[in-house]
């Protein structure tokens, strides 16, 4: 029987955790395949999650591929499918198909200093690389994270970030000052200029809303980062995930298949249609 | 027609009059067929044609919209707007060939419990010979 790329495999949610509650709620899910199907993926790849009756959504896998027991997704509640996902608890079933996308070329970054720059839910795709880098710590130079959110309440993986501070410099920021906030106040791109990560033997990886990516790249260029040293993910609308349904393209690239990870050297050559 | 066929009726009942009328029928323990799925609306004027088409699309065999008698409307003119709009809906449904008996409108005041049961009885009686509604129903 020919494999059917559109048929999801059933997975069971084993654990859920509320990262952010309220307006821009974010929830983290851990899921295991019902028939323990093989689903090996590379960090930065995504999976199409199904809530039957609602639809599908392309979500990046935020756990490291080196962790075999479960797969983790951190999801912002923003529409029909993601809201349905947020209503699910441990024991419920979802559909998962994939893995899709090219993922981060982490093996090419051996020996480099990795600078992670995230905004809002953008930390989810980055988290897979951060965890993998930590599990293969000796293969990389220095690691550092610059991450910002709209308000302190919106910060994702709060407790993970707390114990991440012991393993690498973590520079947090929020857009508008709040009473008991003592770290940087302002947008992430400005925080990048503030913290001035050094471009020497470095790779910068940035994920977040399109507007943030645009200015982070500009500021990294001002800090003399070369185009090949800057990587980002393009989060266009996706429905099929396999480069057929025609909607996620930038130029002749289908972001779901040929992306979503691009170095600025490659992305610069494509039409700025994301 | 299979003798045990029971038409399903979706009834949009205005809260101030018709819904109260149906409550009166219930409180007074009046007998009437249980075919109705009542949906309470604030006013018959707030029933959009889309609700009526959607009810038929989801499998209703009959749709009733019932509101206050002209002059009794809690919002003064809601039922007058309904009278005009639903007249157009009725003409349109007839025009495309739906059995005219399937869509009814009525005025039932809060005191007319008996009239409510009478209308429902008649409605079921008229729908029974027509059989299930398959014209607008999603994949019948």
């Amino acid at each position, binding site marked *: 029987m020919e494999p059917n*790329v559109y048929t999801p495999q059933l997975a069971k949610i084993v654990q859920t955790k509320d990262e952010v509650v309220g307006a821009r709620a974010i929830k983290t899910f851990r899921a295991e395949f019902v028939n323990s199907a093989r689903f090996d993926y590379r960090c930065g790849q995504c999976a199409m999650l199904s809530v039957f009756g609602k639809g599908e959504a392309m979500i990046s896998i935020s756990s490291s591929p080196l962790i075999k027991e479960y797969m983790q997704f951190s999801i912002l509640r923003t529409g029909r499918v993601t809201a349905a996902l947020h209503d699910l608890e441990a024991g419920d079933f979802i559909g998962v198909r994939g893995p899709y996308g090219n993922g981060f070329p982490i093996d090419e970054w051996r020996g480099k200093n990795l600078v992670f720059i995230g905004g809002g839910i953008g930390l989810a795709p980055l988290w897979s690389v951060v965890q993998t880098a930590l599990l293969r710590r000796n293969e990389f130079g220095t690691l550092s994270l610059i991450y910002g959110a709209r308000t302190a309440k919106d910060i994702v993986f709060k407790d993970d970030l707390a114990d991440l501070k012991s393993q690498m410099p973590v520079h947090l920021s929020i857009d508008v000052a709040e009473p008991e906030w003592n770290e940087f106040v302002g947008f992430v791109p400005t925080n990048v200029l503030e913290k001035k990560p050094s471009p020497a033997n470095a790779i910068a990886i940035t994920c977040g809303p399109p507007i943030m990516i645009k200015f982070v790249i500009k500021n990294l260029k001002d800090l003399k980062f070369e185009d090949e040293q800057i990587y980002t993910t393009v989060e266009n609308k996706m429905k099929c995930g396999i480069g057929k349904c025609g909607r*996620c393209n930038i130029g002749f690239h289908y972001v779901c298949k040929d992306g979503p990870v691009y170095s600025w050297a490659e992305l610069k050559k494509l039409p700025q249609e994301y | 027609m299979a003798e045990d066929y029971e038409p399903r009726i979706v009834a949009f009942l205005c809260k101030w009059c018709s819904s109260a009328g149906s409550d009166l029928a219930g409180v007074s323990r009046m007998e009437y067929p249980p075919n109705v799925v009542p949906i309470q609306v604030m006013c018959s004027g707030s029933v959009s044609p889309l609700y009526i088409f959607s009810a038929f699309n989801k499998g209703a065999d009959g749709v009733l919209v019932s509101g206050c008698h002209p002059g009794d409307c809690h919002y003064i003119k809601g039922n007058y707007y309904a009278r005009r709009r639903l007249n157009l809906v009725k003409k349109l449904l007839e025009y495309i060939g739906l059995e005219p008996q399937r869509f009814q409108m009525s005025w039932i005041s809060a005191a007319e419990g008996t009239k409510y049961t009478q209308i429902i009885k008649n409605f079921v009686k008229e729908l029974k010979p027509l059989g299930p509604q398959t014209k607008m129903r999603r994949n019948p």
Partner: protein
Amino acid sequence: MEKTLAKKSFPQWIKKLGSWSVYIPRKDKEGRWNYVEADGGEVGLEVLQTTLPPKKILFPQREVFLEFAMTPAGGRETLEVKEVLPDVKPTVIIGARPCEARAAWLLDKVFGGEFRDVYYWKRRDQTSLVGFACTTPPSENCFCTSVEGSPHSEEGLDLLLTDLGDKYYVQSLSPKGEKLISAAKDLFEEPKPEVKKQVKAAHAESEKKIKRQLKDARPIAEKLKGMFGSPLWDEESMSCLRCGICTYLCPSCHCFDINDEIENSSPLRGQRVRTWDTCQFPDFTMHSSGHNPRPDKAARLRQRLLHKFQYFVQVYDKFMCVGCGRCITLCPVGIDIIKVLDKVRENGA
């Protein structure tokens, strides 16, 4: 293998194709052509151009992917998901045009490759295309010769019939084609030598009769690379109504949407369905945040043309347009893809 088939024995041939589900072209009351299931009725051999191309059979507007249902079992409801594959009888489409078969050949590339689309191939493998070479151009706006096609091209076809007046010259181009011939061997005769010359002449003649022409399509494809920001797209899309005609009726357009359609909400029962979609609607690319990389109709006209005349060329080295002219003929406001591309060629020249 080449044969000839007398025109008058065409209906018998169709009768002999009992084990196929046969689609034939037929003209309706309003004078529009369409493919309909053969019902023994009259076969419209003098077909010009159907409104809906054969794509509607290979890539239908609605395709059920899977069914899901919440079935109450032992207190806790369990979710049951069942894959639904189309069970398709061997099918033959009579009267496809060479350009429409060429479009199917392009769809084969899109739906093949790394992630094979099993729904498309279930239908495609079962379907044979019997093409009529275009001795007279089917439409005022044909320009197949400008996009590397021709009124007698063979890509995607299983049988190519060339009209020689009282009979057809039948070229079998695939095993499927041979099966169609062997289903009614007695109706087909060996072609006489001079018939081959007649066919060559007819084919050459038909190329000259093509009415429209797009000059230098390949240089245009190259030039389009630099025209992403050109104001041309704004001017040319001013009169666009943003409907889906040019894409839904295009034989090679293949964009689609996937949605869950609910039959019953509790207990949940429904289907996951693929339907046609078009880059001309605003929500084709709209992010959940409301950000839209293609916010206006200029960006969407640009996408439709660049996808066909640049992106597809970059990936498959083929134009995704087969020059059938439907988008020109049926556009309610007369946006003409050839005229827009002419302006691209002359732009800044």
